[in-house]
């Protein structure tokens, strides 16, 4: 894609050029596009190889497949692996138990059960596999043609499959097989008719989707015959969903086959089908339960094996659901119920350390691996050496200072990834004072959202794991709260609004229901009173016709309105602290300004504190009293908003400020900080910003930089603080060129 896109944008208006050159250029970009598009199906070779590798690595489906192959082998070589004719009656051996002669015993007519089972497998597998085969042979061309040439043929096929699918499948097969009469061939016909319409619909859907894709259009425009397009380009699209579907329905075919042959529609007795064996066993049940169990177990195991192989094929081709979800969890955007519970084991470290008996052991550990953070935690937990701890980190007030609402101390957090644990937060210190708005800023991926979500313990654990520190809300450590305590804080004392208002309201309940719920979880109010309050709240956040809109569902609200509703919900219980995690990022600019203004106004009215997470410095300037700047999982600077905007102390803060777009600046020169935020797994040694810092020296790369308190209300994490002048920025240095588009 990118190649052709670039090519397009690089081509000036062709009308302005010499015609020949213009044609040539256009041709080139088209042919490139085509080449790329046509190459797409070829990528599937490695796709198949990868899928096959995934399948082989999955032990359960492989075991099931091995079982089925073994079963097919036994069935194929039935005469070799059995010692008796399946229909040979030895009347003196009736109901004989398992023996070396009769491995699974004999039935009421003295026929060898093992032999009948294996010969029965022949019929069951023959029917199952040939139905799968014939259904595909029929469904693929019909579905392809129907999907590729829409029009009358397609309409006719759709109506026909509609009609066939409106008959319950087993009833359809039963009626056809019943009219045709018993026998293997008729069963195959009936079951194929039953399977075809579903597969036709699947193939048609895929063909339809493939038709929409660019490369089909491209290939059509250069005059490739339709027949070639269908079989060379569309068919590959169809193959993997079809393969998944077929491997999943094989189990169903086997079951229906067994049902119908049980009902007497398969090969008639005495032929050894599994259905007939079950029928015989049913009649002899009072005499010998073994005669039921043998075919029952065989049918169950074969179905299970087909199902497991089917699931395995699906997982191999589309990736396991579990693995996909895992990855999305790591992005830190999810909340699971474990947020309430499994954080406890992670605090084992803390528990152990705070236990006086374990103290010596902790100290030994600290000495061994030199991990200072544990010493800090230990010291703090003991209480006696608090002074020392304060020197190490940079707290500004006592934990129980009534002027402080929220105090995060040395919060460290790791994420579990495929490559082991990676550190995401490194001893984060923050405090939010009563009535103030603290702005938490930084580029994407610097840990600000993770910090904000860990306050209410909304991060799923695993993959998140808090490894140290405390989160003190009015002096109580949120991390040590019981599930009950935590629930009573959430939404009552601390409320939160999120980045994505479109998806943050439950689509299945009305706005009113959700605001009423927020109140009634925490306070004993009548439904009527809560509804009245909900109306007031909606009114307060500027939603017109509040009374009527209570009964609306979220999808009837615009994005800005939804964020307002979410704010109303967050304020329902007069919280002391509102955490706003990039609440305006997903909204358009005019709406952003309204929301910012609303939060600013409500902060006064509700006299609450706000922790405002954002990457937008403009917002910070308008709204915040104080600012904490985060970079790569660390707080690098804290100061009052005025200080930050007039005299930033950290090179990163200063770079952020310079990268703000300004009206009237030279067009085409959008300043940005060169380089990217290092990922948690590849954290640079020493100062984490040195790779992108204009002022970095060798000393910056040597050791980790502690945060230093530099004023009554200011701290910075930079060893060159004091020696560099950030106002004299080497903007024009050629080796530090700012990124240009």
């Amino acid at each position, binding site marked *: 894609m990118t190649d052709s896109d670039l090519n397009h944008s690089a081509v000036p208006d062709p009308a302005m050029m010499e015609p020949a050159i213009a044609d040539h250029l256009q041709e080139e970009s088209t042919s490139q596009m085509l080449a790329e598009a046509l190459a797409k199906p070829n990528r599937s070779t490695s796709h198949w190889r990868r899928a096959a590798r995934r399948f082989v690595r999955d032990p359960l489906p492989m075991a099931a497949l091995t079982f089925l192959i073994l079963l097919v082998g036994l069935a194929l070589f039935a005469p070799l692996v059995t010692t008796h004719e399946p229909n040979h009656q030895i009347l003196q051996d009736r109901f004989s138990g398992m023996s070396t002669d009769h491995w699974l015993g004999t039935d009421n007519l003295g026929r060898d059960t093992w032999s009948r089972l294996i010969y029965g497998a022949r019929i069951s597998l023959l029917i199952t596999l040939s139905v799968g085969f014939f259904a595909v042979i029929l469904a693929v061309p019909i579905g392809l043609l129907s999907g590729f040439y829409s029009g009358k043929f397609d309409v006719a096929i759709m109506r026909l499959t509609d*009609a066939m699918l409106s008959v319950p499948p087993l009833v359809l097969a039963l009626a056809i097989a019943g*009219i045709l009469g018993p026998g293997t061939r008729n069963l195959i016909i009936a079951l194929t008719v039953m399977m075809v319409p579903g597969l036709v619909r699947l193939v048609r859907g895929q063909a339809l989707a493939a038709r929409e894709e660019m490369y089909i259009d491209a290939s059509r425009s250069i005059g490739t015959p339709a027949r070639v397009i269908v079989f060379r380009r569309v068919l590959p699209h169809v193959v993997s969903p079809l393969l998944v579907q077929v491997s999943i329905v094989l189990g169903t075919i086997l079951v229906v086959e067994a049902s119908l042959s049980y009902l007497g529609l398969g090969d008639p007795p005495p032929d050894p089908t599994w259905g007939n064996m079950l029928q015989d066993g049913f009649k002899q049940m009072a005499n010998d339960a073994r005669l039921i169990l043998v075919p029952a177990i065989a049918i169950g195991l074969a179905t299970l094996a087909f199902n497991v192989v089917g699931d395995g094929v699906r997982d191999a081709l589309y990736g396991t659901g579990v693995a996909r979800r895992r990855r999305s969890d790591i992005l830190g955007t999810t909340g699971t*119920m474990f947020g309430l519970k499994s954080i406890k084991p992670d605090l084992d470290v803390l528990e152990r350390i705070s236990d006086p008996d374990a103290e010596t052991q902790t100290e030994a550990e600290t000495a061994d691996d030199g991990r200072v953070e544990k010493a800090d935690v230990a010291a703090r937990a003991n209480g006696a050496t608090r002074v020392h701890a304060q020197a190490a980190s940079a707290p500004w007030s006592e934990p129980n200072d009534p002027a402080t609402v929220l105090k995060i101390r040395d919060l460290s957090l790791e994420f579990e990834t495929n490559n082991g644990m990676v550190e995401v937060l490194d001893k984060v210190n923050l405090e939010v004072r009563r009535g103030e708005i603290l702005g938490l800023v930084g580029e994407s991926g610097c840990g600000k959202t993770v910090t904000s979500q860990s306050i209410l313990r909304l991060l799923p654990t695993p993959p998140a794991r808090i490894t140290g520190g405390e989160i003190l809300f009015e002096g109580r450590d949120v991390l040590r709260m019981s599930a009950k305590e935590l629930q009573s804080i959430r939404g009552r004392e601390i409320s939160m609004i999120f980045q994505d208002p479109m998806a943050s309201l439950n689509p299945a309940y009305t706005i009113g229901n959700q605001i009423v719920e927020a109140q009634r979880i925490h306070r004993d109010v009548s439904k009527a009173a809560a509804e009245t309050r909900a109306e007031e709240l909606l009114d307060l956040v500027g939603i017109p016709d509040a009374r009527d809109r209570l009964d609306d*569902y979220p999808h009837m609200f615009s994005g800005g309105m939804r964020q307002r509703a979410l704010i109303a919900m967050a304020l329902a219980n007069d919280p002391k602290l509102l955490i706003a995690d990039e609440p305006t990022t997903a909204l358009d600019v005019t709406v952003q300004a309204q929301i910012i203004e609303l939060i600013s106004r409500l902060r006064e009215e509700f006299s609450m504190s706000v922790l405002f997470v954002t990457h937008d410095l403009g917002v910070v300037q308008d709204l915040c009293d104080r600012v904490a700047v985060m970079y790569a999982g660390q707080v690098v600077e804290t100061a009052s908003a005025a200080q930050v905007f007039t005299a930033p102390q950290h090179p990163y803060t200063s770079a952020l400020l310079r990268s703000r777009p300004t009206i009237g600046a030279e067009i085409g020169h959008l300043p940005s900080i060169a380089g990217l935020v290092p990922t948690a797994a590849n954290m640079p040694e020493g100062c984490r910003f040195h790779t992108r810092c204009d002022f970095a020296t060798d000393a910056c790369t040597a050791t980790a930089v502690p945060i230093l308190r530099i004023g009554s209300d200011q701290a910075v994490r930079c060893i060159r603080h004091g020696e560099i002048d950030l106002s004299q920025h080497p903007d024009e240095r050629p080796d530090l060129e700012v990124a240009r588009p």
Partner: protein
Amino acid sequence: MLQLVGRRLLLLIPTLILVTFGVFMLITLVPGDPATTLAGGENATPEQIEKVRTQLGLDDPLVVQYGRWVSDAVRLDFGESLTSGQDVTSEIQRRLPVTLSIVVGSIVIGLLIGIPLGLLAGARQGGWIDRFLLALTSIGLAIPNFVLAILFINVFAVNLGWVNPIGFDNLVGEDGLQPGAWLKSLALPALALGIGVAARLARQVRTGVVDTMNEPYIRTAWAKGCSPRTVVGKHVFKNAAMPTVTVAGLLIGGLIGGTVIIESIFSANGVGQYLVNGINAGDLPVIQGVVVMFVLAFAIINIAVDIMYGWLNPKVQVS
């Protein structure tokens, strides 16, 4: 909502026309001379063959036959059974309570077992409960209902003697209400059919829950201070139920098929067994009548499922 139902009913008409045509055309699948085969094959007397020929009007052109058949069928008149001579529709009506009991009973069992298990597994995704339930539902899906039925009869009826292995007592018997006897005869068939439903539902609900748990609005619910019970039981459940409801039609189609074989195993005299008997006797009017009735029931259930989906998903109502 009414519009939705109306539209679905309208869409049903072309489908039903095709289905009835297909069902009628089953006669062309009858091997050999239809009259002879349906009268019992080579052993049939010329009188019997002639009787079948007149009853089905087989001498008329196929179009005329179809016209006659379909004009009766729209009045739910499927003619008389070739073997017993009884009116097919009233026979179906008489047996309907048995089939309804078994289908509804198995749905109830499926819901009662499947939904809580699915919620539990989804909420504990990846935990040992989840893994255990995954294994359990795999087994539940792998054992066909008729095999389960036979095993149940063997254990509970033959070995333990708790219930009668065959026959079915209706809720309304000759001496009035008999809920005890009804439940007793319903228990095994409904369980045999319901366990598969439960396994499928549990799987579906689990997937729905796992997907829903990752939605931002669930994070909002946690942040509000909802208890795990409220989060799962209220916020997750209704959303997780949506994809589950869309497969309900499929499940019920399977149930209708399942009841045919379950009834015949338990010798419960329902519509399903009527169909099996009809097939064994080559009784064409019976087969046609039952198939059309099943299709009709299936279609109505699917519309009911759509209505339920509309209730669960508020977005459907406005569009």
